[in-house]
């Protein structure tokens, strides 16, 4: 095979992901039906099915992120800015996660004014929050809190829990890391790709000469970790 006919490996991966995602989607929805049926009949595996649903969702999120990163490598990340009601967006994130919240007995609190509007790319931001929530389940004891407010020209979105907090390597004060590859550690098992993607999305939101950033700390009101997204 000559140079021109060789397929780009990244393209192969991307097309395989698309295909895999279809299957995952099927499993996800079938499982959802099963879970509902199971719930009505009060069968013993009800909780296990919720857990499966959660794991499948993680798998799916990972693939979505991969696709997004694949595209971000080819062309710069494009943002589709519009004005959004924060309450609508955050309720959407919560709706997406409701099955898991219920199954794990996690109490989620939303603190967001009804009249809060901000300009951002809804698809991307909802995607980040969904990911953060998905992670937070694994570490929280039993409480989660999502907050939204505006302050100092930024929209501030926080996700906090009452778990043991983020490990030291994850703490981030808001600056964009000089060398992102350092935070992507394949050794620790957590590839940090989610974080990398969140940073890309945050930074892609610009206004005049300010841009979005992320803060990760352990000083939340619930006593655990707190992830904060700042959007100008």
């Amino acid at each position, binding site marked *: 095979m000559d140079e021109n006919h060789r397929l780009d490996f990244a393209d192969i991966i991307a097309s395989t992901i*698309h295909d895999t*995602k*279809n299957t*995952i*989607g*099927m499993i*996800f*929805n*079938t499982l*959802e*039906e099963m879970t*509902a049926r199971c719930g*009505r009949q009060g069968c013993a595996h009800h909780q296990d099915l919720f857990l499966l649903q959660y794991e499948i969702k993680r798998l*799916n999120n990972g693939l*979505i992120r991969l*696709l*997004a990163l694949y*595209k971000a490598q080819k*062309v710069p*990340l*494009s*943002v*589709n*800015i*519009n*004005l*959004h*009601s924060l*309450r*609508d967006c955050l*309720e*959407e994130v*919560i*709706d*997406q996660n*409701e*099955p898991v*919240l*219920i199954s794990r007995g996690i109490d*989620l609190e939303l603190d967001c004014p*009804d*009249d809060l*509007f901000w*300009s951002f790319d809804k*698809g*991307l931001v*909802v*995607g980040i929050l969904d990911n953060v929530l998905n992670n937070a389940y694994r570490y929280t004891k039993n409480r989660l809190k999502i907050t939204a407010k505006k302050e100092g020209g930024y929209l501030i979105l926080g996700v906090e829990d009452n778990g043991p907090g983020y490990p030291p390597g994850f703490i981030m004060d808001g600056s964009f890391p000089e060398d992102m590859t350092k935070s992507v550690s394949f050794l620790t098992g957590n590839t940090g790709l989610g974080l990398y993607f969140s940073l890309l999305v945050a930074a892609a939101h610009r*206004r005049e000469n300010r841009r979005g950033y992320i803060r990760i700390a352990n000083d939340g009101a619930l006593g655990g970790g707190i992830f904060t997204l700042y959007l100008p």
Partner: protein
Amino acid sequence: MNHSHDEPTKAWSRKKVLLVDDFRNFIVTMRNMLASLGFVIIDTAHNGEEAVDRIMSRRYDIVLCDYNLGPGKDGQQVLEEVKQRQLLSPLTIFMMVTAENSLEMVMGAAEYQPDEYLIKPFTKQVLEKKIRRLMEKKESIRRIEKKMEAMEYQEALEICEELIGQHPQHLADLLKIKGDLLIKKGAYEEAQRFFHEISSLGKFPWALLGQGRINYLQGRYEEAEKIYRELIRANDKIMAAYDELAKTLTKLGRFPQAQEILMQAVEVSPKAVRRQRELGEIALRNQDLDTAQKAYSRAVKEGKFSCYKSPDDYTGLAKVLAENAAPEKGLKVLQEAAAEFSQDVPSLVRISVAKSVAFMKMNKPEQARKEIDAAMKIINKDPATFNPAVGMDLARTLLSQGDGKLGREFLRRIVQSNHEDETILSNVKEMCKELKLEGEGEKWLEEAVEEVVRMNNEGVRLVQSGDLKTAIRYFEKATETLPENKLINANAAYALMLYLKAKGPEPDKLTKVRNYLSRVHRLDADYPDLPKLVSIYRQLTQVQLPWMKTID
């Protein structure tokens, strides 16, 4: 937070849903999900073409359409087509289902955006909530849409303001609608201020496009150019910005730059037929025949799947081939076109005229003449098949055949039908220059324009003098002479309506009014005085204007 959603919603059992996906398993899953939400009427389509057919034949409340639909149209093209052809009621909820959350969303970012994106997989509850929210939104804008449809823009604006107060959760949509309404109403200054205020909230593509459009409409082309360029710099996927920028540059006479922009645009999104056609047109004008040929060929190819399919793609390609010393190939393209559009009379006129151009290049004046005669026969029978583009080609062939009288007659008809359209006037001027009709041409053209102005002024004077009967007769004759002139038709309708207002309704006169207004609408749906005329018409009668579909 834990609601039970196991009982189907009764109110949804009468709503009509269309599911579009090429993946049959997914259709089955979705059908079950929708059924468990209480939907009963669920149709399906497995590709883009089928989806358009379904939407054409039934009015759906909800369309759930996957973005990836295999070969043929994708979800975005389905959406654009049904919106462009006005097959989709503004009250229909259109949700785009995607496998990921990136590129495709941005592609439709400015103009043809679905009501919502659904990222696969999603739970029943997410779907239910989104539908509920969107139904609420559609319900709240129903009143605005009704007024908009009726061209009652002021009333629509008032409702819009009222809703912004009542339903802040729909703020983004309502603001966008408000911007559209201000432009439609012709309140350019106010629109300018509005978009300026919006820009302090963020750089929304729709608001920047609106700002550009306002500047364009008011003749501030350099300003418009700056805005569009900024928009593209910030996000190179907003295709409408390229199109508007190219239009603006054309207005500024910077044709090579306009071509360059369209070339960038087709690089990003090569499937858009109209854009390829426009690129072909401008490249031909710039004598960049290779680019023109490539663009027109692509337009022909993509047009097979598109609502934008047009004989102009074929005639354009044939023209390029003729100029590129291959008129025989051009003729072949036109024969293909004649087969493709065999049922469409206006298209056949255009194709015949284009054939005549090719025959001229091949030095076959008799055959060229035959095509011309065929075209003219149709035009004489049905004047609606005539348009400036056809007229220009007709005139060109006739003039280069030495039939100066008839050729000039066509040019005159174009000029007098469009005496206020600077682009058309300058095209005619250029052609006169090219065919060396210059010296006499310039003066002749001005006189033709003046004649229409005089004719119209005389009618207006009669209206103002109060002799409406004479004015009506006068304009009626004028519309016979110039059936394609918007201003004359609009004033003919106006004079009649003033008369009816004073004397009370007369059915046959109302029919005439409807005909004039329909003609204006057919010639230019955005004719600035049309809303005003429609509102006067409404005071006279309840009878619906023929081009208006009713929103219930």
